[in-house]
């Protein structure tokens, strides 16, 4: 019987995987991330975002090439690098990290909603609708999420472009000066800490080169497209922010996209963008967070902590529910965000690089053998 949780049954076409990872990355639009970048770089935020995108692109291009040229996915690399006990510890760490990530994704949106609309509700009472839907979607597995996201990802692109078009009349190019913002040190060096927003790229290494219906394409080509689309849209968004709102105000705000959406409207009586923003980003964050939880579960299955991850969907959702039941004041929430930023850089950049270095030291010359032996079917591996 075909099991939903078997990694060989995960199927997607190129369009779907690009949509999925673009959607995951697009969650930062509503988060605190744009404000962090603008706080660091000032009026040079566009240079800042282009710079960290470029740096991330170069690093991840190398990581992805190293992983997919030699092995099926990240887990195969981990398996051949670390002893079993460390593998299990790593997988649990990754699982907890992804749980935290999806908690932050949802709570970010909920804090936004509570600050604006549901001011009388508690965080838990809004989150319960999310969590139930999260559970139901996660039960269906990866394939359903890939199908859905193929349809919805285009909404973000439309929304951001729409936001840009509507703000065209309010754009003031003088806001982009001084051209180097807070100085080259802040824009190029300190700004590197903001590359934590690329956490989803770590999940990209979980999915091997298996593509449905024979439409196979090298993974790094998908990766190029993901980075290109994301960088263009994020730059467009930051451009719209800075061109319409003075920089000094941005740094004091918390719900930036909400502010921008409420600022940009055709006239007081007509169309308002806030409700649309809430619909679009609720859907996107809902899909992204369920994908993250599934990835965390998939990871503990692949590294042999559990045999079938689908049984652990409910416990994960229950852990999330408990997290939402704990009332967290905003000051502590900001500390959690800071800790998360440091953790993300570790997981996104530090961990794969370290693993790959140990892998190459351990299996010196292995990749050559792998390439030469053309008769062996690719990527056959027993999951024990």
């Amino acid at each position, binding site marked *: 019987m075909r099991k939903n949780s078997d990694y060989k049954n995960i199927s997607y076409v190129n369009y779907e995987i690009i949509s999925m990872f673009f959607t995951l990355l697009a969650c930062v639009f509503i988060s605190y991330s744009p404000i962090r970048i603008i706080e660091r770089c000032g009026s040079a935020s566009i240079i800042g975002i282009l710079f960290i995108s470029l740096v991330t692109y170069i690093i991840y291009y190398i990581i992805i090439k190293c992983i997919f040229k030699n092995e099926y996915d990240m887990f195969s690399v981990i398996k051949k690098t670390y002893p079993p006990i460390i593998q299990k510890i790593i997988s649990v760490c990754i699982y907890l990290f992804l749980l935290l990530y999806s908690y932050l994704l949802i709570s970010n949106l909920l804090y936004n909603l509570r600050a604006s609309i549901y001011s009388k509700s508690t965080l838990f*009472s809004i989150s319960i609708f999310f969590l139930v839907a999260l559970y139901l979607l996660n039960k269906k597995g990866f394939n359903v999420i890939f199908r859905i996201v193929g349809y919805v990802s285009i909404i973000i692109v439309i929304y951001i472009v729409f936001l840009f078009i509507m703000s065209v009349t309010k754009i003031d190019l003088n806001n982009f000066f001084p051209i180097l913002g807070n100085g080259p040190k802040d824009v190029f060096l300190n700004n590197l800490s903001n590359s934590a927003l690329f956490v989803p790229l770590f999940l990209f290494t979980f999915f091997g080169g298996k593509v449905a219906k024979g439409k196979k394409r090298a993974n790094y080509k998908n990766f190029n497209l993901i980075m290109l689309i994301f960088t263009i849209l994020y730059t467009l968004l930051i451009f719209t922010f800075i061109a319409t709102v*003075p920089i000094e105000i941005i740094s004091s705000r918390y719900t930036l996209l*909400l502010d921008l959406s*409420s*600022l940009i409207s055709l006239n007081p009586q007509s169309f308002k963008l806030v409700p649309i923003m809430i619909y679009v980003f609720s859907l996107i964050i809902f899909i992204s967070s369920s994908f993250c939880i599934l990835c965390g579960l998939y990871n503990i299955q692949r590294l042999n902590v559990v045999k079938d991850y689908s049984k652990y969907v*409910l416990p994960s959702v229950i852990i999330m529910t408990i997290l939402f039941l704990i009332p967290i004041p905003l000051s502590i929430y900001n500390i959690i965000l800071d800790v998360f930023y440091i953790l993300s850089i570790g997981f996104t950049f530090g961990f794969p690089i370290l693993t790959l270095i140990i892998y190459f030291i351990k299996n010196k010359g292995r990749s050559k053998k792998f390439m030469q032996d053309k008769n062996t079917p690719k990527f056959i591996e027993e999951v024990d």
Partner: protein
Amino acid sequence: MSKNNYVLENKKNPFFTILKIIVVIIVFIIMIGLENSVNVNNLCFANIIGLDKSENIPSNLLVTFQFITPKLESSNSVSTDETLITSIDANSLDMAAHTTQDYISSNIDFSNADALIISEDLAKDGVQRYISNISSNLRYNTNMYIIICEGKAQDFIETLDKNKDISPLTYFNILENSEEYTGSTKVVNITEFSDLLFTTYAYASTPICKINTNEDSKKEDKEDKKESSSQSSNKSNSESSSNNSSDSSTSSEKSETIDNTNSKNTNTINQKSNINIEVGGTALFKDEKLIGSLTSDETAFHIMLTSRLKSYTTTLDFEKDDANNNQNSSANVSITQTAKASIKVDTKGSKPRIDIKVPLNIIVLDTPAGEYDYLDSNYINNVKNNIKEILDKKMEAYFYKLQKEYNVDLDEFYKYSRKNFLTVNEYNEYNFKEKFKDAKINVKFDINFNDSGLNIEK
């Protein structure tokens, strides 16, 4: 195939089934009481909010609301004619709204509020704490206009409400038109205003509104006494405006065409219709406090420099006219700005130098000359030169007021100066804000005279 895709191998655990049922029950319990039906007769929309200083307790506010209470009529249509005005003494706007809710006995909705009117006295003490609350709270309409009232905001709202010719729903939207067609006001919504208020280098500004009580009867009395000073009577309430007072009345009257027409017709019969409201001019803020005001005429120059003046009709007084030997003569002109003003700020020297070029299109509507003088090219050139001179002088006076009297960089020249610096630190070291009052400003009008009909030959 599709079913096989997500079938689980193991038998279902009863623990999970029970948990699922519990979750479903919890969701149903949460959903109880989510029905949301609205009775139209219970609705109440706040349309205008007025803030005054309280007369009883100095730290308190006198908050005035104009409510619109929609009523369901027999033909299933909803009428919004009924308005209600209440004034409450409270220490904040939220407290006032809370107290009002108690005896209005319906939920007040602020999401459609049109305008926030703050009295002059209150604005002089600082407005930041009222504005930051409203602009960051989505309960209020973040696009509502903000206006400073000469006199009490309560009186203004009551006068506006009494005037049956003005629809309270649309009155403030007319202001946007007045910016476009008269240049006497620059409308600002509360989000833009709070943005300017919290920006270090920027200065906020709002339109000014006031009540002209018994304007026409006063006019008549004064006309009897002094024939020459008829123009200045319109500006009885304003403090400043030495040379430009005559122009402001013409431009600001246009924005209030609705009530003006009625009052002129029936001024002797009905005492109420003499009460006249007016919006025109600009209030200037520095460090969240009201420090002064610009006249309607000066506001046109402000619009000229920051955005685009679409249409502005004014009377320009010539000091001496050679052609007719009249002591005081004037020309009525219609000014249109053809493109945005090009502004360059040079920060090389110790004092900044600002070069401004304003392209204008001017139509001379009429001059005091006789019919035959229009064919005299010398006379026409004279008129053109006079107009140029007067515009230059007015602009000079405008900058004198901003630089020397108030030291306010209202036209946001600091933005243009940032182009000369690489980093924020360099820019902060230069301290443009301090140096603005010594800046040398050169304004060049690029005037293109257009003929209106046969008035001026080509």
